[in-house]
C-alpha cells in the first residue's frame, strides 16, 4: 500500500475505514514519523473545532425556540403561560408510569424552565401532595434515569444546564467528581433536581445526585440496585435524596456521608 493520502488518513481518524485498510494505515503510522505528525495535527484541529462549538450545547435554549418547537399554539406563549403549563405538569401523576416516560416529560419541563431563564426564584411552590406517596416510585426509577442520562445516545440533546452563580451546589471534587450541570424535573408531581457529576476515571463513572422536594418522614440510607446501577437513597428534613452510579457502594456511601453533611449546610 502506498503512503496514505490526507483523505484516507482523515477517514482513518474518523473510524470510517474497513479492518484491512485500518491495519495498513496503522502500520504506516508506526513506520512514518511524518505521517504520525500529520495525523496529530489533523486530530488537534478537529478537537479544536469540536471545542469551539460545544459551548452552544451548554447555552440555555431561547424561549422563542422552545415556543417554536411547541408549535403554533404555543407561539404566543408568555412567561405566565409557561408557568401555568409547568403548574399543570406538576399535578400528581398516576403511579403506573414507566421510568422512561418521565425523562421525556422532564426534558420538556426542564426545557421550559431553562428557556425562560433558569432561576430558583421563578419556580413555583409545589402544592402539598394529599393522595400520593411518591418516594418509593421515584427512588425505584432512579436506576433508569441514570442509564438514560449517562447514555450517549439516549441523552443526546438533553444537555445539563449551568445553574445561577448564587446557587450552591455540593462539591464532590474530593471524590474526583466534577459538577457538570443540573436539570429540574418533576418527580411524581413534585419539584426535583438532578445533578450530574462526571470524571475522567471510567472506573468511577458519572454519578448522579437527585434531590426531591418531598418526603413522608426521615429515614436512613436504603440501598438498592437497578441493573448494574447502584442507588443509595435517604430522606431528611422534608427532602428525598439519592445517589446513583455504577461504581461500588462503598464509594457511594462515602459520597453520601459528604453529601448529607453538605446538604445540611445548604
Amino acid at each position: 500500500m502506498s503512503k496514505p493520502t490526507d483523505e484516507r488518513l482523515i477517514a482513518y481518524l474518523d473510524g470510517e475505514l474497513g479492518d484491512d485498510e485500518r491495519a495498513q494505515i496503522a502500520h504506516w503510522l508506526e513506520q512514518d514519523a511524518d505521517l504520525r505528525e500529520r495525523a496529530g495535527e489533523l486530530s488537534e484541529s478537529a478537537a479544536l473545532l469540536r471545542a469551539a462549538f460545544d459551548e452552544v450545547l451548554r447555552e440555555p435554549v431561547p424561549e422563542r425556540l422552545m415556543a417554536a418547537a411547541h408549535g403554533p399554539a404555543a407561539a404566543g406563549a408568555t412567561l405566565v403561560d409557561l408557568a401555568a403549563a409547568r403548574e399543570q405538569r406538576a399535578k400528581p401523576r398516576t403511579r403506573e408510569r414507566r421510568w422512561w416516560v418521565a425523562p421525556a416529560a422532564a426534558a420538556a419541563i426542564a426545557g421550559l424552565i431553562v428557556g425562560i431563564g433558569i432561576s430558583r426564584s421563578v419556580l413555583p411552590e409545589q402544592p402539598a401532595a394529599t393522595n400520593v406517596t411518591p418516594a418509593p416510585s421515584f427512588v425505584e426509577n432512579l436506576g433508569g434515569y441514570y442509564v438514560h442520562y449517562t447514555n450517549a445516545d439516549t441523552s443526546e440533546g438533553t444537555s445539563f444546564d449551568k445553574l445561577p452563580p448564587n446557587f450552591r451546589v455540593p462539591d464532590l471534587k474530593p471524590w474526583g467528581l466534577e459538577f457538570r450541570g443540573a436539570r429540574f424535573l418533576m418527580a411524581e408531581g413534585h419539584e426535583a433536581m438532578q445533578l450530574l457529576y462526571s470524571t475522567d476515571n471510567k472506573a468511577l463513572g458519572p454519578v448522579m445526585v437527585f434531590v426531591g422536594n418531598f418526603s413522608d418522614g426521615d429515614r436512613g440510607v436504603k440501598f438498592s440496585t437497578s441493573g448494574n446501577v447502584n442507588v443509595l437513597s435517604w430522606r431528611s428534613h422534608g427532602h428525598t435524596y439519592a445517589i446513583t452510579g455504577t461504581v461500588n457502594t462503598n464509594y457511594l456511601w462515602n459520597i453520601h456521608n459528604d453529601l448529607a453533611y453538605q446538604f445540611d449546610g445548604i
Partner: protein
Amino acid sequence: MPVAPRNKPDRQPLSGNEASVGSLPLSGRVAMSVSVSDQLIAVLPRMRRFARGLTGSAVEADDLVQAACERALTRAHQFQEGTRFDSWMFRIVQTIWIDQLRARDTRREEAEDEGVHLGTDEPGRRVEARLALEEVRNALQDLPPEQRAALMLVTVDGLSYKEAAEIAGVPVGTIMSRLARARVALQARLEAGGSLRRSTEDVKADG
C-alpha cells in the same frame, strides 16, 4: 498526540417513544404534534450548534432553527418511521439554509454578538483559549458552505459519513472528499493563525 481512530458511538435507530411518532395515526394530529415537539425540544441544542456552524452568527442560527421547527411541525407527516429524527431535522436545517443562501447574495456580516467577550479579570490562559476557539469559528466560515456542513455533521456532531451523506443528499465519497478538503484547509488556516500553537489544555480551560 494520539493518532488512534475515533471510536464513534454505536448509534441506534430510534426506539421506544421516539419511534412512536411515526406510528401514530395521521388523524391524531394533536398527539403527533406533541410527540414531534418533544423530540424537537430534545434536539434543539444540537440543531443550534449545527446552525451556528453553518451561519457563523448566533442570531441567524436561531432564526434558522426556528424556521426548521416550524417546517418540521407542518410536515410532520413526512417523517418516516424507523429513521432518525435528528437526521431529519439536520436535513431540514440544511435545506432551509441552502435556500437562504441561494435567495440572497450572501455577504456574511460581522458576527454581532458572538464575539469574544473578555472580562478584564479573565485569566490570561483562558483569554488565549477563547481567542483560539474564536479563530476556529472564523476559520470555519472561510470554508465553502458544503465543506462547512460536512465538518459540522461529522467532525462536530459525530455523525458517520453515511449519515452525513444522507443528510446532504450526496454519495458517501463526496462527503469523504469534502471532509478531507475541509480538514486540510482548516488545519492550514489554524496553523497560519497560530491556534494550533496554543495547547489543548488552554482550550479545556475555557470549558
